């Protein structure tokens, strides 16, 4: 399970870096969105292998459950990520409006 998570994180990170380095603001937007997810899943992987563990609800029966703390952190990070992505979309839209192009070269040579 951990191996799969690591692979997913790796693929997400490399895809997002590829997208961020593109010359168009639309792939850049998706790149940052993916980068956010990559970091979030990395944080999820920190809570360890979840196989055979319950959700973190304490029942006094002594069942083993996954570490809840990384998930709490993750929730906070997701919310912050939402806010920043919303801001990024508006910013890119305003850049598009003022330069009527989505190409980075056109925008910065304008």
């Amino acid at each position, binding site marked *: 399970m951990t191996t799969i998570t690591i692979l997913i994180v790796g693929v997400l990170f490399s895809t997002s870096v590829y997208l961020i380095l593109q010359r168009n603001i639309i792939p*850049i937007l998706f790149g940052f969105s993916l*980068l956010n997810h990559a970091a979030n899943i990395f944080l999820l992987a*920190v809570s360890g292998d979840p196989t055979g563990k319950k959700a973190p609800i304490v029942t006094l029966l002594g069942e083993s459950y996954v570490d809840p703390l990384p998930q709490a952190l993750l929730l906070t990070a997701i919310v912050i990520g939402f806010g920043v992505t919303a801001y990024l979309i508006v910013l890119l839209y305003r850049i598009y409006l003022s330069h009527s192009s989505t190409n980075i070269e056109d925008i910065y040579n304008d």
Partner: protein
Amino acid sequence: MTNWIVLPTILPLLLGSILLVWRTPSVQRRWASALTFIGLIAVSKCLLWKTLSEKILILPMGGWKAPFGIFLSLDTLGAIMVTLALGVSLAALVYGFAQQSIEDEHPMRIPLIFFLVAGINLSFTTGDFFNLFVAFEIMLISSYSILTLEIKEKDVRHALPYLAINLIGSALFLCAGGIFYALFGSLNFADIAQLSAGYANDPRLIVASLMLVLIFGLKAGFFPLYYWMPNSYPSLPTPLAAIFAGLLTKVGIYVIIRIFVTVLPHTLLAPHQFILILAVPTMIIGILSALTQRTIRGVLCFNLVSHIGFMMVGIGILTEQSIAASIFYMMHHVLVIASLFLITGVVYRISGTDELESGGNIWKKAPWVGVLFLVQALALTGIPPLSGFWGKAMILQSAIEGSHWILVGSIVIASVLTLLSMIRIWFAFFWRDNPSTTLNLEGTGWKWMSLSAFALVLCTLVIGFAANPYIRLAQQASSSLFDRDLTINKVLSSPDIKSQSVHSESNGGHH
């Protein structure tokens, strides 16, 4: 009184929210925000005085026991930084009032300044790695908004590099937090400090610590990571540029001091040497770039980068004396660079340009602006007995004691070139006669602007001429950072309120 730690964060958040609703700019709104800052400065002075006797103040949020709950803690360094942050913000706020009439004021400007200050203060008071992340995000999201708030439509593009680099920084910050949690099972600074002692040679910790240098170096403007800064800062209105330049970079430096001195083991050599190696090009290339700039703000931005290098030297050497030197230098630099940005705004207002080629005549027509600039320029360079001299002398002393001769050479070269870059501004705008420049000295706005810049100049003069108590303050801050056992004991043995009530509840369940 310990509960007061939360005030520098909560009050700005509260007032910011109120001002979001109380939208229309008015004289009362301006008074309310300025008085809040004055009250907060009084609170932070009390807190600073308190930390001198108690070393570290601790506030467990919600009463949870040490490594489990969120922790606010404030030591002398944190209290110094909170006071400075509030002081600089107040000066910039009042300066903004003088610069803009009430009709021109953007209704979102003051609330956003409050949110920014809340984020900055939270990162100075937090005792927890994840809370630090949240503080950084509050600070960054406010700074993104401030950056694009009053920007010209064409310049919106300059916000994208700033946003991009900080988004990457935030993603890495989250990953570094994950690595720390995986290694130590805790995110509390004191807890990590206790657990990390045996990990000095662990490659995972070395990688995580280098990631931290990268993340906070990005914010502070270390050598290869500063290219975003001179592009994004000049598009800001002057008072906001002063807050950004004076405070945001210092938050990066503060966190590096906090983490490498109080949290991670000192025997971890890789990041310290990395910081020392990066310090040389930061100082030299930063100041050489300053010499090639054509606007005052460009020169100041690269001076800012170059002087971050001086603080890096103190951090990299990592003795009690060198950290004290960095702290003192930081105190001086926050005030000097912020006031220089404010003075630049006055110069821009009266001569209508900030291009070095087209300025002139100010010394004849408005000598007091010239005096303000000259004092700060010489303080930045480090001419005795101004504040920069003591900071540089302390950093040089630590570098000589450690026999780091390359660093000693770079510091001296960078200081001399700083003087040269300041002389260029002085000559271009103040000293020479330029018949093609006409100064606009009408109105009283620029006089009030100079007055609030003068308040900061006065602070640096006090630090320079009465340096002894401030140097001792920096030394005390540094020595309490190095006194790790005290911090660990105090945090981890703090009163245990919540777990008792949980126990009694679970007992009740059994019956």
